[in-house]
């Protein structure tokens, strides 16, 4: 099973190092040797597992830190990747936020967590419910959390049904209160996050659309009380099943956290769960091909060969969302000329807050739009100077790819109808719900 666990900074320094099966001291620095060989940046671009000198390394990356496990025998890489993800999530839960600094400050806490999570390389538990019985060390936070710190309300600000907004930092404090903290806030955050990937063919026809969604809960309630999450009643799973009248909210595939009780799910679409402290994913779902809504964008590209060696790219982008909605951080990139090294760009954009730049490494033009309201239409003209332009070069103009974030919106239409705690928590308990759809693979072919 697991031989060693490392948490490395982005420069490759050891922040945490635990030797689970106590290998000989000489092998302790096996990872260092390996990294010296390949460099820390290699971890960014290679698949895991990687093998070096009888040891297998498996790594994941969270918040700029590398979480690495080495192993000598033949364990399941799935187990190890899941474990590392869980370790990162728990570290975040216990330390409040995840950064090189917070890990350095809380190393004793993390060692204690690791001791309870892994014994002799066997994973014991990753549940906060069990762990909270054992963990003694208190988290050290760099700055005591204050609700009055509302400086950066924005994209990550949560929104409730009452349109109250919590600051983005609200969900980044340790789940276990320190003794110094006077008022214990009983808060619960529910996120419905959807990831959209779309391929639109050169003829404008939607070729492929996938939605992967999940309902995540971050819970600060110290005692376990049952939470009931009501989803849309017309929510249906699979192709055959249809519920209610009108437009159903449909997904293909749905899986739940093992703690979720589903006895009321079939009839009332209610998820019942006693959430453990910390963050967990209650439900994951997928939908492919049949989107209930039209794709949020339409793009009308024209690529022409201008006189001389100039490539003319005219892009017209329309957002088909209702005017109330808006997109943030839209990035559009298009490969222009793969084989050629030198070219220059001139541009005409429809508003000054947008920007466009040429990315020499990916040989693409990146057009950035900070905010794009529904119903609006934007256009851009790019003139790319391509030496030795031939008609064949037009064939080289690659697909357009967009990435964006769409707050307060789900593609499937999934909504949380209500969020109830029973028995009702004594004292203040606040519930926050937010929705977001994002995409980093929205491709339009030319």
């Amino acid at each position, binding site marked *: 099973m697991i031989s060693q666990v490392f948490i490395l900074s982005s420069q490759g320094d050891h922040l945490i190092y635990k030797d689970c099966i106590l290998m000989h001291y000489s092998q302790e620095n096996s990872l260092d040797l390996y990294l010296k060989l390949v460099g820390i940046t290699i971890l960014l671009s290679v698949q895991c*597992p990687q093998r070096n000198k009888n040891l297998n390394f498996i790594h994941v990356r969270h918040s700029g830190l590398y979480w690495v496990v080495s192993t000598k025998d033949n364990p399941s890489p799935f187990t190890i990747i899941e474990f590392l993800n869980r370790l990162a999530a728990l570290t975040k839960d216990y330390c409040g936020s995840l950064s090189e600094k917070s890990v350095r400050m809380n190393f004793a806490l993390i060692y204690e967590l690791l001791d309870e999570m892994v014994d002799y390389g*066997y994973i014991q538990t*990753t549940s906060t419910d069990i762990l909270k019985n054992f963990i003694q060390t208190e988290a050290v936070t760099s700055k005591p959390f204050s609700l009055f710190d509302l400086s950066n309300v924005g994209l990550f600000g949560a929104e409730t049904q009452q349109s109250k907004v919590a600051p983005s930092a609200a969900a980044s404090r340790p789940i276990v209160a320190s003794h110094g903290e006077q008022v214990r806030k009983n808060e619960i955050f529910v996120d419905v996050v959807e990831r959209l990937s779309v391929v639109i063919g050169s003829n404008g026809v939607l070729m492929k659309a996938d939605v992967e969604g999940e309902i995540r809960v971050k819970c600060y309630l110290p005692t376990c009380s049952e939470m009931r999450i009501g989803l849309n009643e017309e929510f249906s799973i699979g192709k055959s099943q249809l519920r209610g009248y009108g437009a159903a909210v449909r997904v293909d595939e749905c899986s739940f956290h093992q703690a979720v009780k589903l006895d009321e799910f079939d009839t009332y679409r209610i998820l019942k769960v006693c959430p453990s402290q910390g963050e967990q994913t209650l439900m994951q779902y997928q939908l492919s091909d049949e989107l209930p809504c039209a794709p949020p964008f339409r793009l009308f590209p024209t690529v022409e060969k201008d006189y001389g060696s100039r490539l003319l790219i005219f892009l017209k982008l329309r957002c088909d969302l209702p005017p109330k909605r808006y997109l943030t951080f839209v990035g559009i990139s298009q490969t222009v000329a793969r*084989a050629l090294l030198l070219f220059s760009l001139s541009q005409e954009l429809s508003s000054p807050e947008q920007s466009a730049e040429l990315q020499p490494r990916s040989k*693409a033009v990146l057009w950035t739009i900070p905010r794009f309201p529904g119903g609006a239409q934007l256009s851009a003209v790019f003139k790319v100077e391509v030496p030795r332009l031939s008609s*064949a070069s037009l064939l*080289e103009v690659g697909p357009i790819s967009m990435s964006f974030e769409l707050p307060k919106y789900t593609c499937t239409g999934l909504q949380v109808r209500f969020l109830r705690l029973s028995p009702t928590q004594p004292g203040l308990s606040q519930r926050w719900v937010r929705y977001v759809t994002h995409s980093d693979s929205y491709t339009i072919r030319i």
Partner: protein
Amino acid sequence: ETNKLYCTSVKCCIFELKAELNSDKKEKKKEAVKKVIASMTVGKDVSALFPDVVNCMQTDNLELKKLVYLYLMNYAKSQPDMAIMAVNTFVKDCEDPNPLIRALAVRTMGCIRVDKITEYLCEPLRKCLKDEDPYVRKTAAVCVAKLHDINAQLVEDQGFLDTLKDLISDSNPMVVANAVAALSEISESHPNCNLLDLNPQSINKLLTALNECTEWGQIFILDCLANYTPRDDRESQSICERVTPRLSHANSAVVLSAVKVLMKFMEMLPKDLDYYGTLLKKLAPPLVTLLSAEPELQYVALRNINLIVQKRPEILKHEMKVFFVKYNDPIYVKLEKLDIMIRLASQANIAQVLAELKEYATEVDVDFVRKAVRAIGRCAIKVEQSAERCVSTLLDLIQTKVNYVVQEAIVVIKDIFRKYPNKYESVIATLCENLDSLDEPEARAAMIWIVGEYAERIDNADELLESFLEGFHDESTQVSETHTHTHLQHVLHKHTQNTPDSDNPDLRDRGYIYWRLLSTDPVAAKEVVLAEKPLISEETDLIEPTLLEELICHIGSLASVYHKPPNAFVEGSRGVQHKRLPARTASGESAESPDAGQSVGGVSDAPPAVIPSQGDLLGDLLNLDLAPPSASVPVVPASMQMGVDLLGGGLDSLVGLHRPSGSQYIAVGLAGGTGGMPAGLGGTPAMGGGLGDLFDLGGGVGMATGSYVPPKAVWLPAMKAKGLEISGTFARRGGGIHMDLSLTNNAMSIMTDFAIQFNRNSFGLAPAGPLQVLTPLAQNQTIDVSLPLNTNGPIMKMEPLNNLQVAVKNNIDVFYFSCQYPISLLFVEDGKMDRQVFLATWKDIPSENETQYQIKDFHLNSDAASTKLQGSNVFTVAKRTVDAQDLLYQSIKLTNGIWALAELRIQSITPNYMLALKCRAPEVSQYICQCYELLLRN
């Protein structure tokens, strides 16, 4: 303030820490220990503080205690004497009223790998294994595994293994899971003792615990279940039913462990069972779900899916779309997806796949684009209907003029030409336009090959070749080889001469041989160089079936990601056991043979026919590619004089070339052989013993032991071989294969220096010794020689399969002939299959591999037939009589491990025998059927 913990300056010296550790204040002590551990993490040696830290051990503050224990674990090994100091505290802590402290003590002391300590730990451990608190028990269970690693004998002597076994029935699932994990690990280092003792009762307990324990515990239990072999298909089904709910678990590791159990136990279910189909359907969604995970998981999932698709393509055949590449996938995920896409490509989805591949070919990443182009070629080869569309897609890509796209496209078009000869030459003109841009060896070689192959259709082929010739000296070997070959091909077409001059001796010699060949006998040369190229195989990179089976047993592990068996990368004894898929056993039959579990293991032993497809263009000319068997045996005209010594020195240089690649040319020359013979060949060590062996010569000839020997036939008529007539036959005697030859000298002169060589053939037949003709063969003399053969020679699929091309040399010339051997020659003596195994194998071989054959007008009864066949190693496994017809079930094993199973139906009413033959390598069936008739009639 806490940042100071990481301070690396001189101030934080050991001395300062020492003082703080000995402070009276608890808080200060705690901070000091924290600082020590921080230094430890960054790699500083703080072992000098050992006694001071140990002094802090006796405290009621749990946080401090944990920190001290953390330190102890790391340094106890380097300070064994000091570690003894801690023992008392350990023993005391193991009896602490607080279960957290008891568990902490037992956990830590197992990690202290000091021999002196271990003895003191046995008593506390024994108590903790029976502790009332499950948290202590589960920790103690792991401690047994730790102790076993330090001192296995101690653990056995103290009876801890039995206590551990008892814990499998514990009421707490966490304890069960840890006990299972510990026992699994211990039993891996003791493969023989059956520690886990899996039986239906214990399996039932595990299945119950499965529903209750944590996700990580579920993984231990599922992995343990996968090692169990159910007694029959019913038990297998019931386990599958109880494991299937795990497929929807959110933890991918649980899902994969469940998939492993199901893939393994499915093997035992009959395919016509409804449940089998249901199970197949249930396996697809969880695998698809894995692909929406983060890239790290996606990659390991894809590697596993790659195995599953090879084993059971039906699971994911409708899921092609999920393997389409996303824009933001990392490159290693993209490449894996592409691989699976090609494996799943079929006529039903090929249009969609091609459209995707064409898009991929316009992406930025060069490796990915290349692989996409290559994939288009593979689609063409795999799905014939799509070939035309693939070719036109490739032509479109060539139009982009992107250098590496063009080169890659040309390489795959070459493969398409090989698969579908004379179909798509219309595109050659387009290819020729791009000649200048080719700068990679593989692409150049492919282009040269195409030009050579279709030289007749390209007007300026010689010009094109000349242009390639300019850079001849700089080319890599691959290009040069193809080039030489092609050039010759071309020359043969055009009948012009050109001798390449190169520094690579191998190449130069080859060119030289060609040239010699050309100048002596253009016809023969044409047949050598233009010999039919072996077919290109449809699937590439397929994992060899036995390895695939083993890897399926390791689904979800590192082995399944590396596609290597665990013993290839795990050190030591662990993982040495090869895992096998269970064979199918029907519930009704298992009652008779309780040991079916073991015996069925052998079924999958028979490796399916692996006849390597010929990768290289040349068909490896250096191995004396003889002309294909035909009436026109290439015989060099007799009119040749010594001046053109292709046959003397020429052949010798040919032989010389052979040497490095494992020559089979075995020559025995009498003293004073031809002077032109190089020393390396003439001085064969076999020569010395030559005379002594003389008397053994006839010994083996003509002694039949029941095995069928066809009558001798004339293989090489005297008129074709300057007076040497060769007739012969093949026989199987005493477990060995012999080629019995009669050599007759019809010429006017004495013949000496006989030697024989075989071309590569389907079953690797090769001479096991020299051709023993030790006295010169006088005029009109005939000599019988028995040449022992083995099957260790190089393999190449022949058409027909049992064709053998032979070259015989003597002092006069080299002669070539081809002959066919009865496939019964290859039936081995240990070909009798166990009844159960026979049954299981028969069911396992799909019905499309069955061949029906009728033997007409044959009147022998079943017993006589059985005896007759047994003489030639066709073994009757069982006999049944149903409705006045006898059914003989027979097994045959070939020298290369291929099994053939036969059902011979003998009716008393009609004189016809019906033969049904099942074989995993159906290409041999036809020959075996013919042999049956031959064996029965003789």
